[in-house]
């Protein structure tokens, strides 16, 4: 469903959703959210681990 091309003739950017800027922005936000989410999860894990040895 994400293919941005229908033929290999005169192709430039051919990756999935290359013709859909909205989707590309959405994926970018998703990537950023995963990074932020990972850091937040590590902070929560650390706080829980440190609480156990108080």
């Amino acid at each position: 469903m994400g293919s941005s091309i229908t033929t290999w003739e005169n192709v430039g950017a051919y990756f999935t959703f290359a013709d859909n800027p909205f989707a590309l922005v959405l994926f970018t936000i998703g990537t950023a959210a995963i990074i932020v989410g990972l850091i937040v999860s590590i902070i929560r894990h650390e706080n829980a681990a440190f609480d156990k040895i108080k």
Partner: protein
Amino acid sequence: MENSPTLESLQAALDAQQAVFEMHQAMNVEVFYWWCTAIMLMIHAGFLAYEMGASRSKNALAAGIKNILAIALIIPAFYLFGWWIYNAFPTGFVPIEAAAALPWSTSMGPDVQDMGTGIFWAAFALFGATTGSILSGAVIERIRVSAFLILTIFLGGVVWIMAGAWGWHPDGWLLTKFGYHDVGASGVVHAIAGFFTLGVLMNLGARKGKFIDGVPQIISPHSLPMTLIGLMMIIFGFFGFLGGCIIFNGGETGWTTIYGTPTNLSAFAFNTLMGFAGGIIGCYIATRDPFWTMSGGLVGIISVAAGLDIYSPSLAFIIAVCTGLVAVQFAKFLEKRGIDDAVGAVSVHGFTGFVAVVLVGVFAGGTPNAEGMPAISFVGQFVGAVVMGLMGFVPGYGLSFLLKKANSLRVPEACEDIGIDEVELLAKPYPEGSVPAMTAMTTSDVPNKLANSEA
């Protein structure tokens, strides 16, 4: 005579051959940087071994996991904003048009017509990951993994590449106004990361027990051999790193520096190896310490990297020996002032990178740059070195200060006593083995001494 070639058919055949040649040339460029990037990963394998070995066994896995996660986070961070920063900020803090480098641009993905962007992005992403690894070793055994990752994303995804835009980009203001010359990234990677690290260390504080009544103590590594092997792996990876710093041009141009001046891999080979050898000798003479001797290889390469294309090999060797001797003194100077840099990263990367940039101005002043750019000069190099130092130190100090104020920079004292592996990772590096966590503390004249010693 019906089949005789016509002028048109000969031209068509020539055009076809030219197209084949150009395609293969473009593929060769891709192949070269592909393998440079792969070899650069050895830097991270090396840092992994080096930092785990340098830690006490109770913190070995924590040192490793933060190194692994740093690469995993710097790469997407560099995709999200690092590449855009490089293209948008060559003239200072005001961005220029660089929409093609934004992560939602069609230039930032597979494109039949573009055989350059992805491969250069990859090499730069790995340069960024190297800055994170430089920070990583210095802060072992007491930094929170989360704090380290925030700092390393900032360093590897923003700070160094901003300096890279100023000092490496064809329109970078340090180049266009001062003729800045730093072909092997002594300044834009090593000085930046080293001084960023210094800023972090000032807020992070020393490992518990490192200083007793202000006197620095030896905290021995749990595996010095692993540390030495790791350092040698980093040296191997440097050949990918430095290969990634040279420009493989199509057409008749051939190899150039990142500044567009002619050079070749032979020039890089002479001076990389002579610098490597000289640094080892300098640090060995200064310390007789195994860790510092092997670190000297890094000092040596970094000390000549800025002028890798223009030094005479014997001069490169002498520069590396002398910088090795002085870098140890700088590490000792920091240690006496209460800075606990567990692996000497500030000295090996920050101090050496700074000196390397300045020395290009001392020994190669007057060397012409590409047309329209100022020639290399002492003033230009000194300004560049100061900019690199400040560009590293100020953000490193500032962000770590904020983390410290939020009580989010350092693990609790109890965690430091037990070991981060057991508290946070619920894992032991050697569950069936018996590795002494720490020998008795002693003092030494060797800064950041890692060699095992008897009390």
